[in-house]
């Protein structure tokens, strides 16, 4: 009887540790898979910056020139009359979770006009872009200097 009792105790110990170890291995696998499976989703922040800069230059709700007669939108042509902080903050609204803030400087015939988004404070990167400027129907070459904040 003593030997049988010992045998039962041994089995119970085995199964207890067996279940615990297998459960721990499964939990560890879930954490490891989750950690490494999400790493390919990390996106270069400049991808987002490119999308936002495209919005500034390509959307008629931002600074892109829109022909009032034909309705055509000229992507890459800045309508100088629209180049105000008010328009910028309407076409790129505040979002506390999104890190990017912009300072835009339009250089037209050597004269600089700078506008900024609401939360902009520190310049981290500056990129000059060649654009066309439409000033009341007169088209000139110019430069849009995009100042970016929020790149980690």
């Amino acid at each position: 009887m003593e030997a049988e009792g010992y045998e039962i105790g041994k089995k119970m110990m085995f199964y207890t540790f067996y279940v615990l170890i297998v459960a721990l291995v499964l939990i560890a696998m879930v954490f490891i898979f989750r950690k490494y499976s999400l790493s390919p989703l990390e996106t270069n922040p400049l991808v987002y910056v490119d999308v936002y800069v495209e919005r500034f230059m390509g959307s008629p709700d931002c600074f892109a020139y829109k022909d009032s007669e034909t309705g055509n939108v000229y992507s890459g042509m800045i309508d100088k009359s629209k180049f105000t902080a008010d328009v910028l903050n309407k076409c790129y609204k505040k979002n506390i979770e999104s890190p990017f803030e912009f300072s835009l400087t339009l250089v037209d015939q050597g004269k600089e006009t700078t506008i900024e988004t609401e939360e902009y404070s520190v310049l981290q990167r500056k990129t000059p872009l060649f654009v066309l400027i439409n000033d009341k129907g007169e088209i000139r070459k110019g430069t849009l200097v995009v100042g970016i904040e929020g790149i980690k």
Partner: protein
Amino acid sequence: MQKRGVSTVFAIFSIAASIIILIAATNLAKRVATAEDVRQPFLAKDIALMFDALHAVPGNVQFNYKTTNFTQKITIDVIEANSVKVAPLFGQEYVFSFRPGIPTITSDEFSIGENKADVIEFIKSDSKIAASKKEVK
């Protein structure tokens, strides 16, 4: 008699433990094999980026975004017009934000994953951008 009874308990216990471990391991293998842990956050991030991209389009747009082989029902919600939340029936939720602008985003909550293939339809018109599940015949 006592020994036989105890052996039966152990047998039931080991079968139950084996079933639980088998189900857990199968679910884990299924998630890894179908890459659900990658595809769900990818979907949230991609839809958020899609809204950002649609803001930059100089005109009106209708775009069909195809999704295939999600193994469970997934709810997609645009929260307060600045984030996309993807919530599976079981498991973790993923939220990614975008920067709204003009036109504004008006999108209701919708679900995918009930069919083998689903289509999310993005429509940009003059005053709004909307995403919804397109019924495919």
